[in-house]
């Protein structure tokens, strides 16, 4: 009996969706557009986070010596660094090798040829034992204080900035999802309000003949849920299409920085979460609407 009444409600909701296909599709598209923006933002942030993870490697410190420092002085610095227990690996990069690497890097060969002297300093690249911010900061302070050192650079700084940016982007996407989710609830609320108005006579007759409030409400709730679900499906279609459209250009841009970029499509779990989110918001909008508009029951 209960399952049957749900089946009837679902059938009636589907009939209502199908009776005005253009209107149903347009409403679902409005929902889809509202969902596409945060969903796309989230997927892009996910891709960016993956990219940052892929290229960050181990966090390192680059220690640039002053230009006037001789190789002997550099060896003294190296000995001091090797004695430091906080450092797990150390690599010396002479200025000649640094210049060679620079000329091998795309775009700088002509610049290097034009140079009369090698302007690059000798440098050490060291890997701390612990990757904690406190260790990095302590090492940076110690190294900066050395008279032979000109500049200390934390190589993973820009990766951390990307991570921070990704986190900011994710939060923005979530806030946007909350905002546009509210819009989705309002759209469904209004759609159901109009349906209740147009079906006032049928509702009134049903109540007169012994329909329960649940019997009257249920098709509207299913309608909201189905409309949200349809909007969610359209939204994923749009997200997929937009990702396919921007992928070639994004990959070309990444290649120019010698980065291999794979744009990942949303996972099955992500798709399921968005569909559930859209369906739940549709149901919520419908629930608010029937609660508000069918509260007193239009019996007469």
């Amino acid at each position: 009996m209960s399952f049957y009444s749900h089946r009837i409600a679902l059938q009636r909701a589907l009939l209502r969706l199908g009776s005005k296909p253009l209107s149903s599709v347009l409403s679902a598209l409005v929902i889809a557009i509202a969902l596409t923006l945060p969903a796309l933002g989230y997927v892009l942030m996910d891709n960016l986070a993956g990219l940052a993870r892929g290229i960050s490697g181990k966090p390192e410190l680059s220690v640039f010596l002053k230009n006037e420092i001789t190789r002997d002085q550099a060896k003294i610095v190296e000995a001091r660094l090797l004695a430091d227990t906080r450092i797990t690996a150390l690599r010396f990069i002479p200025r000649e090798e640094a210049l060679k690497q620079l000329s091998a890097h795309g775009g700088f060969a002509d610049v290097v040829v034009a140079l009369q002297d090698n302007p690059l300093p000798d440098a050490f690249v060291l890997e701390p034992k612990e990757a904690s911010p406190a260790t990095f900061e302590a090492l940076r302070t110690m190294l900066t204080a050395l008279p032979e050192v000109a500049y200390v650079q934390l190589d993973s700084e820009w990766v951390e900035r990307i991570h921070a940016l990704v986190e900011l982007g994710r939060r923005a996407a979530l806030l946007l999802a909350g905002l546009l989710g509210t819009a989705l609830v309002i759209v469904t609320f209004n759609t159901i309000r109009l349906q209740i108005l147009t079906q006032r006579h049928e509702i009134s007759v049903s109540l007169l003949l012994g329909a329960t409030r649940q019997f009257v409400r249920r098709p509207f709730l299913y309608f909201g849920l189905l409309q949200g679900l349809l909007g969610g499906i359209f939204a994923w279609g749009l997200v997929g299409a937009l990702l396919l459209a921007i992928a070639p250009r994004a990959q070309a841009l990444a290649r120019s920085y010698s980065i291999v970029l794979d744009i990942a499509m949303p996972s099955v779990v992500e798709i399921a979460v968005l569909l559930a989110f859209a369906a739940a918001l549709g149901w919520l909008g419908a629930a608010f609407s029937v609660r508000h508009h069918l509260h007193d029951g239009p019996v007469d």
Partner: protein
Amino acid sequence: MIQFDHVSKHYPSGHEALSDLSLEIRHGELLVLAGHSGAGKSTLLKLIAALEAPSSGRVLVNGLDVGRMRRSQVPYLRRSLGLVMQEHRLLMDRTVFDNVMLPLVVSGELPRDAKKRVHVALERVGLTPFERVMPVTLSGGEQQRVAIARAIVNRPSILIADEPTAHLDPAYAREIAALFRSFHAAGVTLILATHDDTLYSPYGARRIELSKGRLLT
């Protein structure tokens, strides 16, 4: 079966539709409510079906106090009644068959059993050939018969009709009245509000008259 115990009904406008009315309707009775427009006939019928609540007093239907009934119980009361209103209240975008099926759909009857009962109800009112047509194509008398089929499809023990022949010509009115009398003959308690009690009085109906919300006879 149905008892009105010092029932009054006041509307927010100040109009007093019923005033200290006490009445008992027995099982299997044919009761005709007579009276001028605004006498309180429709209000009395609405109180039985919990379409209105009494301002004071008690309305008991099969022992249940309709005025104090929980809202969730009201649909089950209405399913036990057959209601025919002055305006037939058919769904004009549904076929005759679907209109008659509606009370069975709302009460969760399984389709196979429901369809059989719809066929029986339509046969009872003589509308079997019209089951696939839209009510809008039918005459007033035929539309009222659809409403009657819808009222009896749940096999109610109490049938309530509010001016069921008000807008019909005399020939149709006699036809509908004969149909109601046949339900009464089959054991259904029949309560009718009508301006034309001559359609029922010669057939053993109890006639009561209302005036300004009070019982005259």
